[in-house]
């Protein structure tokens, strides 16, 4: 009886601690979500948390000073003297704040703290990002023309065409290799495996220039095939390492009995090993997919930023770069780019829970 109570108490504590951690983790993304629905001017003027009720200075009355008040000297307001600088920043008097309302007209705002919340929301940011931004162009003959910039639709499909094969291909290749490393004997097996593990740490920037040169001579620049192969190479060491951990943990008797039944290595691999390592495959797929989906550097170099091939991350980066400081658009674009990875995560999530997963989990 006492033990049960102890367990319940510790459960309460566990829930509390975890809830606090989750709260901290969620706040940054939540801030972005809120910001993406706020008008551009609000984002730059006030923090996103101002959408919650809070106390803020609000003008209750205005004081008009004599027109000829000298701003360089001390300024008398309601029996006290202040300097111009103080009035610009706002100065407190009897729980009220005095601040210039209109300095030129010598009008002072008297403000009091009141409960407010800034709740101006709009979907304008999303509309602009999805449909493309409108540019006003003045033609040589003086007439104005509105031109629509590139929307995110095209780059969304480009990213799909890059990401899915760039996830499937390396996982396939790495699983075959991992199977051979784990269950087949061949000369050079150890050396090859050690080399692949060591390649884990090679920064991919090392490879950019040599690959670019080879691609140019093969005509593979700016093609899907080229970027699939590049992503495959950069992902292979980690995926092989993970899949080796999973495949080498399968019980030995499984293989022996299958071979007695006359199975070939290929059927063993596709009928037995792949289904048995589905949890590992699912999780490494998610990581590779996320990595490719969010990649910026590799696509920038091997795909380029032409609208026909441009991927989402490049589209977002362009919002920062060439179009000036469009923070309000960035918030919406960032959220749109997260949707697909989140969908993939939630659809494959069940494997995470049940799973024997990449990292050598004993099963």
């Amino acid at each position: 009886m006492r033990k049960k109570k102890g367990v319940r108490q510790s459960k309460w504590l566990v829930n509390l601690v975890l809830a606090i951690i989750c709260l901290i983790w969620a706040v940054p993304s939540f801030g972005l979500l809120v910001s993406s629905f706020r008008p551009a001017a609000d984002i730059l003027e006030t923090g996103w948390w101002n959408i919650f009720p809070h106390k803020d200075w609000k003008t209750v009355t205005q004081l008009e000073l004599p027109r000829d008040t000298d701003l360089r000297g001390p300024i008398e307001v309601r029996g006290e003297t202040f300097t111009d600088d103080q009035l610009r920043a706002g100065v407190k008097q009897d729980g009220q704040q005095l601040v210039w309302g209109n300095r030129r007209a010598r009008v002072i705002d008297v403000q009091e703290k009141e409960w407010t919340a800034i709740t101006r929301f709009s979907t304008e940011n999303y509309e602009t990002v999805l449909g493309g931004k409108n540019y006003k162009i003045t033609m040589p003959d003086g007439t104005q023309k509105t031109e629509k910039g590139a929307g995110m639709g095209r780059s969304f499909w480009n990213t799909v065409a890059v990401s899915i094969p760039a996830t499937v291909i390396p996982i396939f290749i790495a699983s075959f290799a991992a199977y051979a490393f784990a269950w087949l004997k061949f000369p050079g097996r150890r050396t090859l495996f050690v080399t692949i593990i060591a390649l884990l740490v090679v920064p991919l920037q090392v490879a950019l220039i040599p690959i670019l040169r080879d691609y140019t001579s093969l005509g593979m620049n700016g093609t899907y095939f080229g970027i699939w192969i590049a992503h495959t190479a950069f992902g292979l060491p980690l995926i092989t390492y993970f899949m080796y951990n999973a495949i080498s943990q399968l019980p030995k008797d499984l293989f022996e009995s299958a071979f007695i039944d006359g199975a070939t290595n290929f059927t063993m691999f596709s009928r037995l090993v792949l289904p048995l390592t589905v949890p590992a495959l699912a999780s490494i797929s998610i990581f590779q997919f996320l990595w490719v989906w969010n990649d910026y550097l590799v696509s920038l170099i091997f795909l380029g930023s032409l609208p026909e091939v441009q991927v989402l991350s490049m589209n977002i980066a362009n919002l920062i770069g060439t179009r000036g400081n469009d923070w309000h658009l960035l918030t919406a674009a960032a959220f749109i780019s997260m949707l697909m990875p989140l969908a993939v995560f939630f659809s494959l999530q069940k494997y995470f829970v049940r799973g024997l997963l990449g990292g050598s989990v004993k099963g």
Partner: protein
Amino acid sequence: MNQATTSRNAFQLALFTVLVPALNIAVHWLIFIFFRDSDLPPVVNAVLAVIWGALGIYTIYYSLNWVVEQYPDKWKNRLLPFIFVGPAALILGWLLVLPTLRTLYLSFLDASSDKFVGLSNFAAVFTDRLLLTALRNNLLWVFFGTIACVGLGLLIAILADRSSFEKLAKSIIFMPMAISMVAAGVIWKFIYYYQPGDEQIGLLNAIVVAFGGEPQAWLSMVQPWNNLFLIVILIWMQTGFAMVIFSAAIKSIPEELLEAARIDGAGEVKIFFSIMIPYISSTLLSVTTTIIVFTLKIFDVVMVMTGGQYDTEVVATQFYRQLFMYQNAGYGSTLAIVLLIAVIPVIWLNLRQFRKEGF
């Protein structure tokens, strides 16, 4: 008669051996040309490309395996491993090993790769102030980043296992992994944003001001702590990775084992250290390895947030700068090699673990 079949078989074999790989190359090259030159609507293009990528890789393996299956048993067993490992070895050899060897070679040459300079680039890396800062920062990243990701990941995995809202909690912790670095940069700019005065739109400064403090320019002025503020971003993004894997490992611990320990009167702390940790030790090693490697190579967090200014340069960004901006191939390559050397102990630990498991 028998002689005749063997020789015909040998002829067939040779034909297949040449024909099937050649056919593979030809077909895929043609499809490649088709995609490069055609102008399909984006959706159709994407769907076709996905089908080609996924089916293509399967048919390559299938057809090559079929050729090997035609060989006599002795040869079959000898050749098959190379079909399985071959594509991985070829791609890695071309796109990673060769560039790495070239980098090693360049690290012994001067800035414009004309003259052999021996180890003087390495001497420079360990004396030049800029490069030393990069090395120091990378150490900070590896140390704090790895400890926090692994520690927090393990803690959250254990807590989630016992909480009443496991799925929700795991989704929240994992979510940052789904965010691109560029987007995460935007998110964290909203946190670290600094402007003078009382009205702050950055969350951290708003909190500081609310408690009566002075707002700080977190990423630029507070050196060397600004590195830690950048590392926090990595922790926020990568803890989900560690947590997901640890969570799976913890769930694979047999319930009876834990129950037996509890009946014997072991406290939760003791169970954690003497049952859980040994049971998931190999997972612990692989997660730690992955995160160490990740932090060693860290690039985009720094590039997006500070561009390496204010003493936040790390080895990968400095490497990029030396190679692409200062055109100093010598320094750049040397930095990459230093990264490679730095990870040798980690690789060695992993190999020892593999050997223990009977590699």
